[in-house]
């Protein structure tokens, strides 16, 4: 089941990546990043079964980090929304070249 889990995690990760590439809604992009983290978590857990408990610990920490990032990230999104009145990233191009 290890291989299957790893492949599944990989696929979810890739889908997450795809989402970040093709979506423009910041929140959905963020969700896709969460998908990636979730995939990583799955990988950790899968390995943990055959390697040791640290994998599970790691997942624990990743979840914490995800929570922290979510808090800050959503705050930033709110903050930028105040300026641009949108969450569409292709409007955020004051900074370029």
């Amino acid at each position, binding site marked *: 089941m290890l291989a299957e889990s790893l492949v599944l995690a990989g696929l979810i990760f890739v889908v997450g*990546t795809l989402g970040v590439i093709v979506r423009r809604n*910041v929140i959905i992009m963020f969700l896709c*990043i969460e998908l990636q983290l979730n995939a990583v978590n799955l990988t950790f857990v899968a390995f943990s079964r055959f390697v040791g408990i640290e994998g599970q610990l*790691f997942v624990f920490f990743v979840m914490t980090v995800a929570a*922290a*990032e979510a808090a800050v*990230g959503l705050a*930033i999104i709110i*903050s*930028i929304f105040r300026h641009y009145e949108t969450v569409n990233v292709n409007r955020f191009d004051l900074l370029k070249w």
Partner: protein
Amino acid sequence: MELDFSNQAHFIVALAPEIILAVWGMVILLVGVSSRGPTGPRASTELGWLSLVGILAAVLANGWLYGVTEVGTGSMIAVDRFALFSNWIILAGAGLGILVSQNYVQRQGLQAAEFYVLLIYSTVGLMVMTAARDLIVIFLGLEIMSVAVYVLAAINRADGRSAEAGLKYFLLGAFSTGFLLYGIALVYGAAGSTHISAIAESVANGTAHGALLAFGIALLTVGFSFKVSAVPFHMWTPDVYEGAPTPVTAFMSVAVKAGAFLAFLRVFSVAFVDAYESWWVILWWLTVLTMVVANLIATVQVSVKRMLAYSGIAHAGYLMVAIVAANETAAAGLLFYLLIYTLMNIGAFGIVILVSDHGEERLEIQEYAGFGWRHPLLGLVFTVFLLSLAGFPGTGGFIGKVFLLQGAMEANLVYLSVILVLTTVVSYWYYLRVAWFMWMRDAPPGPDVHTIHVPVGMRVALIAGVILIVYLGIFPGATMEVARSSVSGLSVIGPASIGLAP
């Protein structure tokens, strides 16, 4: 269930500077938010000095740690010379960062307490990250730093560009974190541990799982490359550096980059040293790309701030040479160069902060016309910083570059060295362009409406920077020795010599 912490007690010593700083951060938070805390226009300056006290305490603690013997390389937190030297660099970056930001924070009306607190916590994160011997701790340190810096980049709520910078940094940072984490996961799966010594052992005796390890290393490379802003994972850098408040940019460009590089070096030259064959080609190409692309694009920048951003990317390229070279000289060179880089880059940004006197204005290079003759000392100081960035003899930048090149030479990376110097020539163009606007263009006629007031903190930072850069350019011996002894504490040295690059 009894928990036995006796094995963990030494962490209090090992993490003394970090703990001091963390506690001090809370103190500042309390002082800053309490109604009795400093108020009025001087508040930010005073809080800045207060924060510096914390940095100073951490510095003292770090010095004290030199007298402490480590419990063993199995510890999650290293107290080796490498970590301590890293702390010097990061603390220097943080201290100078605070010095150059005091006036800025005040004139931009930023929330001073939070600003300094976040800066201090990101410093803590960086220090943890560079001292850590466990990928989990490295990751957490990285995240503490990142989250704090995401916020710092966006902290100027009055400025949409700041918010945009914060958002871009956050989105791309989180995205790259995914890769880093995935890499850690795969390495963990392959080597059976997240402790870098254990990984190193497993890689060395071949028990590590090759296919997984290779992908793990690749993804870790991606993750670190993002943090050090290597091409093509650099694309956030110019935007974020340009949009973020200038002191934050200054801090990011030195301390954050330094921390990332130091962790990068530790992981790759300790954990993956025996898998060198599998990753050096990737890094070689990333290095080349970084040096070439960054320097080329930097030549067409009109904003000094953005130019310095590309310059920072270019420097990342130079520094990555050390990682590719993976030998003691290169590692020592990396340390030395990072120190110099911290001094000169903060200095350069310091001048930018001074010139953009009403916030984020007057960033364009045209604004520097005649600057040198109107403010000769500042002009001279800026020129020294620029020359050092360009790597000119007489400045620390030159010694640092030579140090890196020596490392590359020992690893027989001749082509890489040649590319390094060729791109350095390109970099002369944009550094000198600033100098030429400063000294060779006449200022627009009429009286100078922009009187520049140099506050004490800034003055200290600039003077210290210039003196140290020149000093290290002329008498680098002692510092070089320290750098070299610092990496010899790092247990692993790469292969002595490898073939020429592709």
